[in-house]
């Protein structure tokens, strides 16, 4: 069997594809990051740049990534090095695409740790393990004991490792079952559960009535949507809004492209892309904005909720919410629902992160899916163990910033330039419209060609000057990690060294793959003929019939 035959994957249904894509986009940030960002950046004023960014950045990037992915699928390339090389016939293209392998592996290794917290807290809620800790300080101590190895004040040494093993293991198990048999099935089960739990929690929060401060949960909306128009001209608000749109849609990760590579040119991507983006936005704005902050406002009052929102996303989710659940009837059940909802949001994203790497080794080296998936899992586990051990030294936040924040913007900028400028706007536009169920308004061609890359360049430039350069020089802390403690710089250097090592590894692997398969950078790849039956995406065409 040829390499290409072994890499054959299909989506079983269009709804399954959209749920998987939406599941990839809907993550912890929809429920934890969005409400805090909105509240801290002017409430209603934040929503104006937020929606403008959605139209100028989010939707165009969504179509561009689906377009790059499906175009790569024509040559059976489900990884960014191959997708870039398919568009830009230059030896450099494949090496630029390496960033699309590094980011998912690195993010997978620490994202599954955050996911394991949600799994652990689901269990702790069900068993009432944190019951009785009704102050911010007591819950913070409980969380810290879980996060920091060596601080066994509450949790045994092995507990975080056990839950991490379960979280990563379940991710890799789903991944090993393939696109249709694993990822799609998970999305079809996980996403409805996520919606159900979120709706139940919203109803529960709004039937709480006024809390101890006499403030109604409805005032939480005042907190998020209050239009502080004095901040509309503030560049930081605009960048915060653009950043939120960027992270929430999971663009720049390399995962949406891999999912789209399993479609054929007869399948629609224009309508599916907008359905995916809008589903994510509905979950974020309607459901994500209606749970944590309204509950915090009811329980801690407006001033207390402001403190909670500014204390960071994880404090909202893992410190404040458990206190809220302790104050309501059937709190253990609702607490378990909250953390299970976050777990499903997390696992539908984490399974997507490993798919580009699995696709690369299957397509280029002819390996079987299961061994590749479990090997990727073992490597991510090894990196994850380091992140758990060195959590208190900011190891995880270093990776989160360079791969999960700055790296995403770099990757998005590269793909916009390659798809809209190297491939040319006319080809990109035609490619997105192949098999399309809708005609995209022509103004988006202009937006995708000029506005989106300029917008991204501004974000990148701003972040480079205000964050990346100071972080690189160890001036101040990175991301959510806070300042670097004196004497712990060595862990920062190790984490950066590992990032460089991972990048070098993938550069070498890409080089080997191109030599092994005798690809000619200047000629490009041979288009895979689509058999009448059994074509990637054929199932979708059949289902529509």
């Amino acid at each position, binding site marked *: 069997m040829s390499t290409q035959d072994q890499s054959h994957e299909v989506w079983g249904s*269009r*709804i399954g594809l*959209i749920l998987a894509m939406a599941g990839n986009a809907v993550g912890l940030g929809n429920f934890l990051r969005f409400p805090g960002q909105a509240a801290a950046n002017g*409430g*209603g004023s934040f*929503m104006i740049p937020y*929606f403008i960014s959605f139209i100028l950045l989010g939707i165009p990037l969504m179509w561009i990534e689906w377009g790059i992915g499906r175009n790569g699928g024509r040559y059976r390339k489900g990884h960014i090095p191959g997708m870039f090389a398919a568009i830009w016939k230059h030896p450099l293209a494949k090496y630029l695409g390496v960033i699309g392998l590094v980011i998912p592996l690195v993010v997978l290794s620490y994202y599954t740790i955050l996911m394991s917290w949600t799994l652990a807290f689901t269990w702790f809620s069900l068993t009432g393990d944190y019951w009785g800790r009704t102050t911010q300080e007591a819950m913070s101590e409980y969380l810290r004991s879980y996060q920091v190895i060596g601080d066994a004040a509450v949790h045994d040494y092995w507990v975080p490792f056990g839950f991490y093993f379960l979280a990563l293991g379940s991710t890799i198990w789903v991944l090993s079952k393939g696109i249709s048999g694993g990822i799609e099935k998970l999305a079809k089960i996980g996403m409805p559960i996520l919606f159900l739990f979120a709706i139940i929690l919203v109803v529960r929060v709004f039937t709480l009535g006024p809390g101890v401060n006499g403030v109604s949960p*409805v*005032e939480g*909306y*005042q907190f*998020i*949507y*209050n*239009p502080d128009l004095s901040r509309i001209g503030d560049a930081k608000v605009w960048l915060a809004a653009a950043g939120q749109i960027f992270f929430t849609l999971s663009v720049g990760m390399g995962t949406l492209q891999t999912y789209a590579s399993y479609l054929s040119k*007869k399948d629609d991507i224009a*309508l*599916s892309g*907008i*359905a995916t983006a*809008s*589903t994510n*936005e*509905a979950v*974020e*704005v*309607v459901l994500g904005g209606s749970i944590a902050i309204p509950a915090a406002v009811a329980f801690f009052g407006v001033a207390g909720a402001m403190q909670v929102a500014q204390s960071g996303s994880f404090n909202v989710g893992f410190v404040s919410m458990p206190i809220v659940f302790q104050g309501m009837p059937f709190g253990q059940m609702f607490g378990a629902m909250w953390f299970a909802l976050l777990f499903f949001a997390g696992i539908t994203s984490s399974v997507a992160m490993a798919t580009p790497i699995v696709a690369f080794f299957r397509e280029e080296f002819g390996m079987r899916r299961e061994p590749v998936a479990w090997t990727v899992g073992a490597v991510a586990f090894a990196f994850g163990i380091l992140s758990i051990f060195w959590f208190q030294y900011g190891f995880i936040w270093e990776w989160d910033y360079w791969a999960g924040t700055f790296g995403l913007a770099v990757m998005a900028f590269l793909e916009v330039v390659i798809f809209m400028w190297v491939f040319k706007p006319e080809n990109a536009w035609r490619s997105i419209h192949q098999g399309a*169920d*809708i005609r995209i308004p022509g103004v988006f061609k202009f937006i995708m060609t000029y506005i989106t890359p300029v917008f991204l360049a501004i974000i990148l430039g701003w972040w480079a000057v205000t964050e990346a350069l100071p972080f690189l020089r160890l001036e101040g802390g990175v991301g959510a990690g806070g300042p670097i403690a004196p004497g712990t710089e060595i862990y920062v250097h190790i984490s950066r060294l590992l990032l460089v090592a991972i990048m070098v590894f993938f550069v070498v692997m890409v080089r080997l793959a191109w030599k092994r398969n005798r690809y000619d950078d200047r000629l490009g790849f041979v288009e895979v003929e689509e058999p*009448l039956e059994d074509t990637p995406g054929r199932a979708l*065409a*059949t289902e*529509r*019939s």
Partner: protein
Amino acid sequence: MTTGALLFLIAAWTFVLGLTFWSFWRILRGKRHFDPDGIGPASPPEVGKFDEYGRPLRRG
């Protein structure tokens, strides 16, 4: 809740929910066709007919 906050809430929710319902309505109302790529049958496959013992009935 102030009128300004309420207006922003209504506008934001209407936009995201409207876009979501519109896109799924377009997907679900998609025309059913049996020849998506010009190579398939012109009509849907007929449901088989069986006798009382579950054996397929011969045509003609």
